[in-house]
């Protein structure tokens, strides 16, 4: 049987269980698309910008935990994809980006649409592969999936010159799938390196059982390792309060009394103050990011520190620990839960309750229905627990993190590490494609939504159950806030001169659009719109001077937050 490189790529992707690929065709990846046309297993999602394609793949990967695929052509196609790839790197999202390259014979000649894809990939991928012959595909493709998903996940680029896609090779028997490349997350996680020894477990248990005021600091590692249920039982058994990073939201039910909410820069006052009191910080699946820890030297000043993460390079990177372990959290929790004592911790819980009461989160009066925190909260009360929320970047993102009642893992998709405006809409499309039975809500700002607005066309093509809510303050709100608080209210380039009519824009893309401009009853209308399951855009005007509070000033310790005073 004769097969072209392009056909081999598509068939290997089918073998990996890939059923959707987002991308845009061009000169250098046409042979791959030609082969894709013949596939009845893979649906191609035509994005309108490669960054959109990258984020659509992220939406699939972030909700399923498995590597998703995007395609781009050489040169400009690759360049447009890079932001979404860097975003995946910083949030540890498994992605396989397959890019067309100009023919091998022209590489290095500054040919039309040539860029050094692998060179560009180095600092923003887990690894990159350059394919120099069709037969190498049998090794490289499965290997790329393994690298993307194994250990700490991340993006991989495979760059394939056009002549390799066209190369015809004779294949007697199709190589059997390597069992080691079976795409089950469990297998990857159970590799020897990720297992903790009995002595490690004993030592951890001893530290926790001996602690008076332990506190769990959890992050994205909990959802990556699929250990939220174990975490819950673990925290409950020993009565350990739980603070989460932005990436960990949803891994612990937000209505549980042990839950302390998000820590760090925009955490509740009590959360950051309780962190000051703990004597044992149990850091699971986190990386001591500066937005979470504030001034690192003053983070949890009274605590011994336990750190468990799958990536050894994260241990002792930003903060030295008393005990650290490079391991899969789930395997650790599996054992550890047996070795920790049942404990009510009445004293510690009482202290926490008191701090919670004395330093509450500054929620606004209910009557202020257009306050973003109230809007987010009421959206949360109207939809199912399994609704997927995507955000863009800015104030609206932090309001979602502060006020939305997340109950389940993988229900918040947000650009945590790179903070990429334009993330929300295409990621929502990917999430909806991978979860046809769930509702997806994209909460955006009037700045961010314009950064990948073209994907409304993709959404119209696909007619997915996505509600886009634009909290419209007429400014680049988060930056305006920084200018107000830390640059003496010198406002430059944060207020928009003109404001597009988003509801009409949506209609012109073929999607329903609503404007709440003169709406006295936002809750009622929201309820009605959210009960539908069709794509739509809702423009909600909000006050442009509203700030995200509390906030930790740059360089300050978390307990030095401002704006945490009590509100009636």
């Amino acid at each position: 049987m004769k097969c072209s490189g392009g056909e081999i790529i598509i068939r290997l992707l089918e073998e990996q269980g890939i059923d959707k690929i987002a991308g845009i065709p061009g000169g250098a990846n046409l042979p791959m698309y030609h082969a894709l046309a013949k596939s009845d297993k893979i649906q191609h999602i035509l994005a309108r910008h490669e960054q959109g394609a990258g984020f659509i793949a992220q939406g699939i990967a972030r909700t399923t935990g498995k590597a998703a695929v995007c395609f781009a052509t050489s040169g400009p196609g690759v360049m447009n994809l890079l932001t979404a790839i860097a975003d995946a790197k910083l949030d540890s999202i498994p992605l396989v980006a397959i890019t067309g390259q100009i023919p091998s014979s022209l590489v290095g000649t500054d040919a039309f649409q040539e860029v050094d894809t692998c060179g560009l990939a180095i600092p923003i991928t887990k690894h990159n592969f350059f394919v120099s012959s069709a037969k190498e595909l049998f090794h490289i493709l499965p290997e790329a999936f393994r690298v993307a998903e194994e250990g700490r996940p991340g993006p991989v680029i495979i760059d394939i010159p056009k002549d390799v896609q066209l190369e015809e090779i004779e294949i007697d028997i199709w190589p059997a799938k390597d069992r080691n490349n079976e795409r089950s997350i469990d297998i990857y996680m159970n590799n020897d390196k990720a297992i903790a020894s009995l002595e490690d477990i004993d030592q951890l248990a001893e530290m926790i059982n001996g602690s008076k005021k332990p506190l769990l600091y959890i992050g994205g590692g909990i959802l990556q390792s699929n250990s939220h249920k174990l975490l819950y039982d673990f925290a409950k058994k020993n009565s350990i309060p739980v603070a989460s990073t932005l990436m960990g939201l949803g891994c612990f039910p937000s209505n549980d009394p042990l839950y302390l909410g998000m820590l760090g820069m925009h955490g509740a006052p009590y959360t950051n103050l309780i962190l000051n009191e703990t004597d044992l910080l149990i850091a699971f699946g986190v990386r001591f990011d500066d937005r979470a820890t504030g001034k690192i030297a003053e983070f949890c000043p009274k605590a011994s520190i336990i750190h468990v993460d799958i990536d050894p390079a994260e241990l002792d990177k930003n903060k030295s620990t008393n005990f650290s372990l490079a391991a899969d959290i789930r395997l650790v929790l599996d054992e550890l839960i047996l070795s920790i004592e049942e404990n009510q911790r009445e004293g510690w819980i009482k202290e926490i309750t008191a701090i919670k009461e004395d330093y509450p989160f500054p929620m606004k009066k209910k009557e202020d229905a257009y306050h973003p925190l109230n809007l987010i909260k009421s959206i949360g009360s109207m939809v199912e627990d399994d609704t997927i929320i995507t955000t863009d970047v800015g104030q609206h993102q932090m309001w979602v993190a502060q006020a939305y009642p997340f109950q389940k893992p993988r229900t918040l998709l947000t650009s945590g590490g790179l903070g990429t405006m334009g993330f929300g809409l295409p990621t929502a499309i990917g999430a909806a494609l991978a979860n046809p039975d769930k509702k997806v809500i994209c909460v955006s700002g009037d700045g961010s939504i314009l950064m990948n607005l073209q994907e409304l066309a993709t959404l119209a093509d696909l007619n997915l159950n996505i509600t886009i809510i634009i909290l419209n303050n007429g400014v680049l709100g988060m930056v305006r806030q920084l200018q107000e608080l830390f640059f003496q209210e010198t406002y430059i380039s944060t207020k928009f001169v003109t404001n597009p009519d988003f509801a009409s824009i949506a209609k012109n893309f073929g999607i329903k659009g609503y404007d709440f401009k003169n709406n006295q009853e936002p809750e009622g209308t929201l309820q009605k719109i959210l009960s539908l399951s069709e794509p739509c855009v809702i423009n909600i005007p909000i006050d442009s001077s509203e700030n995200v509070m509390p906030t930790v000033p740059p360089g300050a310790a978390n307990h030095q937050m401002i704006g945490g005073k009590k509100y009636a």
Partner: protein
Amino acid sequence: MPRTTDVIIQLTVNNHPGVMSNITGLFTRRAFNLEGILCGRLEDTKTSKMYLLVNNDNRINQIIKQLEKLYDVLEVSICTNCDYEVFDNIHQLIQGK
């Protein structure tokens, strides 16, 4: 003879064109200092040996852990019995002395 100011990190790496840029790229991206590089192919194998001269500061463990994560890096160790004069000789060559 090991010195206190510098260390030599010894690497075994896959021998293909992108490896060197992956390794030097790591040093740039993470703002690690890199004072010198020696590299050569091991006979009859698909691997090369690399020696990196780096400052011996408190980031050395982090450098090693990050190197270990690179796909084409097969082995990483701090070289305790390396001859540091090799790099001195190169230094002289470069300074034209």
